[in-house]
């Protein structure tokens, strides 16, 4: 493995031009703020971060953009990139695609139309709710489950961090992942079509902007999985547009008439929090888990074929679901409670598969393929040899998993050593032992030179003074 295996987050693209898009990540590092502490390396679910020379480095191939490091960094050195509002200027007709999680960000909101009208007041020419896309995906999923064509249990493909996690860590589960476009993609496709019909402009003149609670969606738009190219032109962070939107909404509250724009039901809005997608299947035989650690536990159980009796598994990397995303403005649990109230008297669903034309237009065009980024070597023999080396090195390491070496665990350090990316002395315990060895060697040489007996210092318990003792 070449040394360029480690890319510093912020500059990886400049360093690796031919892989420019392939390794794009929303999650990056601000070198000026990073002090080289070990909080992020310990939290990363794919062991994608190392500290080298006092700075965190992100192993690009392994990063799934879950945002855990952004959450945990006490120095705010981990950041998630997103587009700025100024991208709207590049397009003649701009459509906002609000994630349903947006509806949970406002106190005292009792009508989704306030949010949608507020977006138009902010400068968008039209809105298309992602909740509509979600209801279409729910309908399509119900059909596919009924037709019995999917490999069960079916794993939801809506959370881009989960799909990426499966891709790098769970090869056997790739074919269980629901091969349907995510609600954002479906909404974007339909929004562009509707805008072209309405305006007569060409598709390129129309800008489609996802209003996102989620950093992984930024990556998902630049480097999509399942489709060749995303229909979304820009991803704006909810937290970024929030102040402007709230002030527009407050102005709307003074006037009376709102344009009736909302077109989503209980199912679509429910996708914003954990359990929402599964509930939309109207099938009790499902499981929903949130938070990256819980997600991993469920995936491990699935890998061991322990959950075969279930039809559907909904997994969200963020605690609480999308409302818990790092671009949300409000606490995810507060947002979830508000959404529960807000959706109460909505129709069960307002959109269905026919609104998208056909099942074909919803299906992935590219299969999910395992990306063996954790693999030790190209062939099994080499990998076995390396594994033996790793085990051997591991034996010599203290098994404290302290992170001081810059790797998240002793085993990860051993792997890095075998890959030629670290040395055993990066372990401070190994280093100390070696210094001790050298020191005692020196003193032996010294006493040998002087022809004296070796001396040992000892603290006396009661006297408190150091005494000397012949050996």
């Amino acid at each position, binding site marked *: 493995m070449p040394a360029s295996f480690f890319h510093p987050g912020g500059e990886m693209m400049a360093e690796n031009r031919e892989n420019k898009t392939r390794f794009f990540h929303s999650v990056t590092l601000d070198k000026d703020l990073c002090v080289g502490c070990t909080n992020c390396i310990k939290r990363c679910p794919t062991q994608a971060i190392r500290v080298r020379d006092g700075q965190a480095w992100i192993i690009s191939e392994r990063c799934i953009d879950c945002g855990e490091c952004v959450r945990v960094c006490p120095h705010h050195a981990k950041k998630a990139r997103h587009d700025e509002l100024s991208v709207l200027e590049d397009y003649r007709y701009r459509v906002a695609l609000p994630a349903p999680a947006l509806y949970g960000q406002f106190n005292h909101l009792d009508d989704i139309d306030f949010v949608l009208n507020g977006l138009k007041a902010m400068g968008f020419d039209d809105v298309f709710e992602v909740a509509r896309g979600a209801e279409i995906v729910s309908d399509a999923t119900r059909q596919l489950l009924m037709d019995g064509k999917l490999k069960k249990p079916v794993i939801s493909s809506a959370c881009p961090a989960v799909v990426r996690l499966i891709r790098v860590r769970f090869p056997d589960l790739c074919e269980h992942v629901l091969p349907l476009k995510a609600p954002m993609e479906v909404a974007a496709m339909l929004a562009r079509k509707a805008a072209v019909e309405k305006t007569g402009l060409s598709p390129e003149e129309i800008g489609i902007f996802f209003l996102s609670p989620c950093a992984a969606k930024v990556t998902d738009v630049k480097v999509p999985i399942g489709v060749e190219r995303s229909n979304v032109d820009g991803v704006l962070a909810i937290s970024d547009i929030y102040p402007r939107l709230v002030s527009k909404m407050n102005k709307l509250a003074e006037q009376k008439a709102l344009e009736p724009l909302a077109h989503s039901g209980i199912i679509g809005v429910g996708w914003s929090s954990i359990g929402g997608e*599964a*509930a939309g299947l109207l*099938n*009790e035989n499902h499981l929903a888990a949130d938070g990256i650690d819980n997600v991993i536990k469920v995936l491990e159980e699935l890998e061991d074929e322990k959950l075969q009796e279930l039809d559907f598994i909904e997994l969200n990397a963020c605690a609480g679901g999308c409302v818990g995303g790092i671009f949300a403005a409000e606490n995810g649990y507060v947002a979830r409670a508000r959404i529960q109230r807000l959706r109460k*008297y909505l*129709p069960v*669903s307002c959109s269905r598969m026919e609104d998208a034309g056909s099942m074909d237009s919803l299906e992935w065009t590219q299969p999910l393929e395992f990306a063996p980024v954790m693999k030790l070597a190209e062939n099994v023999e080499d990998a076995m040899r390396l594994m033996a080396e790793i085990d051997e090195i591991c034996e010599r390491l203290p098994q404290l998993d302290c992170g001081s070496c810059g790797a998240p665990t002793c085993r990860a350090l051993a792997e890095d050593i075998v890959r030629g990316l670290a040395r055993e002395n990066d372990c401070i315990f190994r280093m100390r032992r070696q210094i001790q060895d050298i020191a005692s060697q020196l003193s032996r040489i010294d006493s040998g030179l002087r022809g004296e007996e070796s001396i040992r210092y000892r603290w006396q318990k009661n006297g408190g003074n150091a005494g000397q003792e012949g050996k």
Partner: protein
Amino acid sequence: MNIKLHYDVPGDDFTRAGEASGLVKRKLKQLGFEPDVVRRVAIAMYEGEINMVIHAGGGEADVEILPDRVTVVLTDHGPGIPDVEQAMQEGWSTAPDNVRSLGFGAGMGLPNIKKYSDTLEIDTKVGEGTALTMTILVKG
């Protein structure tokens, strides 16, 4: 002057439940009814409509709008309600599990209909069906 509306509420597609009351709500808003009246009609009719879909395999909704009142009649040919008094109790529910995760089955539907309407009539016979007539008055 009155407006009469009629809706079929299909029983075989749960995802369509709530559509009819949504349309009525939109109409009332457009007609300029007080927000409180719109809300009461919308919620009472919504609960009755959902009940027809969940418990009775669908039915029909007839709405009559007058300047001083809105009357909603919901008729189904479902199993009927054997014990209306029990059904009216807060929290009593026979809803199936698969709709509970969407927030239904709290047993608050009938109590809410009673709370939000000015008059409520329940005409039900086991094995034949149920008819709910609710009237919401515009107080002035």
